[in-house]
């Protein structure tokens, strides 16, 4: 009998507490004293130390705004956002990439920032124009750039020294890359000269542009994968696997190429500056500019911070976004070597933060860079690229057949 009463009492008390909890949070959201708790969603755990430091600095300025971080691995990030956006449960402030901004802006799940920026005299001239353009949809800016990235040719000095080959420099072209990959491949030691990764940015996109091809046509109505330049570039890429100079597609899905590279099994690979926090731990590694094809080209892309339309704390979220885009935040990113900060003039500090790596290679890349294409259905097209091109990478189907199928599907997606 006692027990029953206890359970009932507990139920009532807990229920009341729950109700009280609801009303409490509502009251604080209406409060005028600026006290708020907001969430910040992103995917890269390598950036956590820098972001924690930035939030600490932010709280010195705004002690009343509590920021909770929410990390979702990149593989699930946009799937989770999609569901959260449908249910109106997006984090207040979140990372956005160029592939998804159009879809999110047109779906009205993120807020345009132009008006708020104008009202607060927040200058958008502090960032490279290409990045602001990337996040402008229908004339309105939706994201404040936080960083940008290009691609470099990472290499393992020790493998080069052992084989007596000189390090990569800006004279390298496609032939030289292939030639050196052959010299460095050592079957007995289990070392591959190069990792022909199946990825678009810092992978086949860069090669296609270097060969004079295009990904999406200027009118945005068709893709250029089936053009001869693109086919040749893809074939060049896959030839490394065919000739045994690169781990196979199967091997790279079982063990990530970046792991093979950082443990000395791969001599060279393309990768972005986001790997700096990881690769700087290994003194054997360094980076150079990517080799040139018919011309120099490399993809450029940058992330930005956006505000969710479902936020209950618009002012607090805008304050955080402004701060994340400020010079103070950029300096922390630069100082810790985490990413190339987007704020103009802070890039040199980033370069100097890790003097043993030739980070100038990434900054040089910006000069001849091509923006990562962004249309409404970029995400879908990327999915088709992975599904179809992997069959060419594993040599199940020929490059010609793969691009035919890919072009058909991608063109349909563009029409939607």
């Amino acid at each position, binding site marked *: 009998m006692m027990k029953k009463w206890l359970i009932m009492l507990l139920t009532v008390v807990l229920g009341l507490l729950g109700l009280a909890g609801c009303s409490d949070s509502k009251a604080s959201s209406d409060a005028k004293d600026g006290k708020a708790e907001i969430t910040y969603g992103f995917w890269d755990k390598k950036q956590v130390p820098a972001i924690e430091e930035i939030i600490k600095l932010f709280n010195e300025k705004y002690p009343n705004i509590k920021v909770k971080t929410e990390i979702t691995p990149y593989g699930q990030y946009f*799937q989770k956002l*999609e569901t959260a956006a449908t249910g109106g449960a997006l984090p207040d402030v979140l990372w956005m990439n160029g592939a998804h901004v159009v879809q999110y802006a047109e*779906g009205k*799940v993120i807020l345009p920032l132009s008006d708020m920026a104008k009202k607060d005299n927040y200058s958008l001239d502090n960032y490279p124009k290409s990045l602001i353009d990337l996040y402008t949809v229908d004339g309105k800016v939706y994201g404040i750039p936080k960083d940008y990235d290009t691609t470099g040719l990472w290499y393992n000095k020790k493998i080069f020294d052992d084989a007596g080959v000189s390090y990569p420099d800006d004279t390298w072209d496609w032939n030289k890359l292939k030639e050196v990959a052959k010299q460095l491949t050592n079957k007995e030691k*289990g070392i591959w000269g190069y990792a022909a990764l199946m990825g678009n940015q810092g992978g086949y996109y860069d090669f296609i542009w270097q060969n004079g091809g295009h990904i999406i046509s200027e009118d945005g109505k068709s893709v250029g994968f089936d053009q001869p330049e693109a086919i040749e570039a893809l074939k060049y890429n896959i030839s490394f696997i065919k000739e045994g100079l690169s781990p196979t597609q*199967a*091997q790279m899905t*079982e063990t990530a190429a970046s792991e093979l590279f950082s443990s000395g099994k791969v001599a060279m690979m393309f990768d972005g500056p986001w790997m700096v926090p990881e690769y700087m731990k290994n003194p054997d590694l360094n980076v150079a500019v990517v080799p040139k094809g018919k011309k120099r080209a490399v993809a450029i892309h940058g992330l930005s911070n956006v505000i969710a339309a479902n936020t209950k704390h618009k002012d607090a979220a805008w304050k955080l976004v402004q701060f994340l885009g400020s010079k103070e935040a950029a300096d922390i990113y630069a100082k810790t070597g985490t990413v190339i900060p987007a704020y103009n003039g802070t890039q040199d500090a980033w370069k100097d933060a890790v003097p043993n790596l030739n980070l100038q290679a990434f900054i040089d890349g910006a000069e001849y860079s091509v923006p990562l294409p962004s249309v409404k259905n970029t995400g*879908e097209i990327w*999915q088709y690229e992975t599904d179809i091109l992997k069959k060419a990478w594993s040599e199940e189907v020929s490059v010609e057949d793969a691009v035919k199928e890919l072009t058909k599907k991608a063109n349909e997606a563009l029409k939607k």
Partner: protein
Amino acid sequence: MKQIPLQAEVKATKKLTVSSLTKTRKRSDYFWAYLMIAPTMLGLFIFYLWPIIQTFYFSFTEWGAFGQYEWTGLDNYKRMLEDTNLLQSFKNTGIYIIFTVPIGIFLSILVAVLLNQKIKGKSVYRTLYFLPVITMPAAIAMVWKWLFNADYGLLNYLLSLIGIKGPHWVSDPKIALYSIIVVAIWSGIGYNMVIFLSGLQGIPKMYYEAAEIDGAGSIKVFFKITLPLLSPVIFFVSIMSLIGAFQVFDLIFMMIGKSSTALESTQSIVYLFYQHAFVLNDKGYAAAIAVLLLIVILIITAIQMVLQKKWVHYD
């Protein structure tokens, strides 16, 4: 195992109600009874029945970004007829079921019978066999992924010691599905074993004693007494594992990478559903796949229910 006492109870209560209680039971009794089960029914309705109804409705719609959808009638079902991926995923799931369910049940019975003997340290063995069940599927998948790694995995290292070059266990399209089947059987034995153990211990000792007096050998005892009396439990386990096998997802999701060459030859129906619902944001078509899966499971379970009359002995 759960079903036997339940059915017995139902029969017992039926007898009672029919005989005398119905007449004396007042209406208010029913009111209270329904009131008492109302919270559970409400939960069942909101969290199980309503989603099923909604899924059914959504299977006739096409989705745009962020929750907008429009009615498209039977389009999704028409599309299914031409979807080779769907066919392939049914084939994959079929192979998965054909191997995991019978082999899984056979091995679990074997282990249960062995561990039902008077042997030393049997609780240690029982714990060991049950360990995979209480381990997170994600952790299991990660460990096996490492064991299966073609270049640096333990399995291929052991094979290399005897001079065999091991295959790409999880990325060769011909082998990957079978690698997953091995892991699934391994991780499922413990759970079924516990159910079989309790079923074995529910068999009255007197039958064995009678058989012993009649001079039956242990093999004969197993086939003539143990197996028939265990058949209700086998039936229960086979229904549950079949439904579970139809819904396989986590192992494939964790062990086969998105850009893996073996994805097409391993993706299950639920994986394809996930791909359409959450990656391609094609929720209408995904709902249609879910409805199809529901119908297939329903039919197969119904067939099992009919067939059981031929081989399941309730005492």
